[in-house]
């Protein structure tokens, strides 16, 4: 598998990473190296093995439906770069 420059640019955009044109080629090579490394997995014979996403044998633990958290607005907002009154604020986004 090999990425071209356009795909590299698109991946950067999806990940919200700003890349200068000069950085593009180097990034493409790094990503291709990673993909090449991962491609080694394709050498493993998985004939007859059902698809899996992990080796976990445990199931998800569930919690009771109780209100046990929240009400910590001041602490939360204190960590935010920008706030106004009880709100976080961000540059205007309107679709």
């Amino acid at each position: 598998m090999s990425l071209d420059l356009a795909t590299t640019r698109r991946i950067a955009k999806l990940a919200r990473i700003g890349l200068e044109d000069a950085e593009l080629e180097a990034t493409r090579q790094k990503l291709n190296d990673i993909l090449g490394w991962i491609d080694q997995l394709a050498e493993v014979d998985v004939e007859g093995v059902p698809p899996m996403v992990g080796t976990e044998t445990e199931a998800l633990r569930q919690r009771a439906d109780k209100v046990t958290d929240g009400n910590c607005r001041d602490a939360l907002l204190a960590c935010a770069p920008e706030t106004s009154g009880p709100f976080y604020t961000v540059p205007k986004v309107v679709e």
Partner: protein
Amino acid sequence: MSYVIEGQTGPWEIVVGLEVHAQVVSQSKLFSGASTTFGADPNTQVSLVDAAFPGMLPVINHECVAQAIRTGLGLKAQINLHSRFDRKNYFYADLPQGYQISQFTHPIVGTGTITIELQNGDTREIGITRLHLEQDAGKLLHDQDPTKSFVDLNRAGVALMEIVSEPDIRAPEEAGAYLRKLRQILRYLGTCDGNMEEGSMRADVNVSVRKTGEPFRTRCEIKNVNSIRFVMQAIEVEATRQIEIWENGGEVDQETRLFDPGRGETRTMRSKEDAHDYRYFPDPDLLPLVLEQAWVDELHAALPELPDPKRARFQHDYGIPFYDAGVLVAEQAVADYYENVAKGRDGRLAASWVTGELFAALNRTGTTIETSPVSADALGKMLDLIADKTINGKIAKEVFEDMVETGDSPDAIVERKGLRQVTDTGVIDSAIAAVLEKHPDKLEEYRSGKDKLFGFFVGQVMKETKGKANPALVNEALKTRLDA
């Protein structure tokens, strides 16, 4: 006749599928212990998990899982004992994590069906593709500041069920019927309050058009339509737009659009080039969701009676028509009220009083079935008074109005106003004599063949007895007297 839109090149069929986001009724959020109450102070119902602080781990809410299973069972759907959560990645200010925890490849609920009923009485089955659990996003306010959007994360992390239909819907009316039916089922189950105004139920609408018999053409998705009426309007407007494009030799682009009810149009929200690439992958923070069949069975056994079976039972047990039964089961509280009135009484009479006088009174007094000025018990007692002939049907209306106004019991009202029905034939006979004496001309006409006047005499006798005479006895006595 099926629904089509007439274009210049002939009729077009519309193809619609709906994705409904239904907020799960629960105390706390899907993966955190923060409260879900609507309308709280901004950002007070936010935990460190919801605000996506580093190192926070999601733990799933047992009740949200139960609600999804109940809903699946209510939709006659397959419950998947193994499901998983995935991350749906996108960047937006209402989503602190940068991804939504959702279920992509392995949803908790698989295929099911909803039976919808149309105006003309026809029913249709609409397929359900799947139902999955996911997190809601926060809320953005754009009108507070010229350059800033304000963010309230109270809703962030609240559990949603996304319920996806097959593209089986062929008319705006069917889309409306589907949404009403789905909302009814959710309310009966108590899994979503179905309140579209508060946003606890929202619909994304997929629309395409085709000539009859063709395969599907390209569809557009209209996002976040927040009322049933708007969904129906949006479908028609969007289908008409697509027909115009096809008929002018163009191509419909697959894109996401917004419906503007004010202008009655849809417009592009984002085109294919900007389309999201969500890069779904299994959420490494969450193990597979594994359900015990025994638990599913337990939830199944505890499900309330749903609208369709209840309707059938009402028809059968109380001898009422399909239509009336439909009206009575529309809301569970109405169905319960009706059943309290009808039990052990004349079911048809009960139905006509509930859907007639009672509904009118609720309307007039601005009350609901829950706050009704007349309890089911009181209305039942009044029907008993009709049944045991203490009052007749006409006087019953007067008694009922008094009940609405004063809240008194029907017995007390009958006594207070002296409304007891006259069954004393002596009293009725003398009323008849008085009427005949007053109208010798009418009597003459009647006897010379004008049968229609019988009704006139009945009316006069009722008037003479201030409406309290037993109508059957009046009829009988009059007939004997007139035809003598």
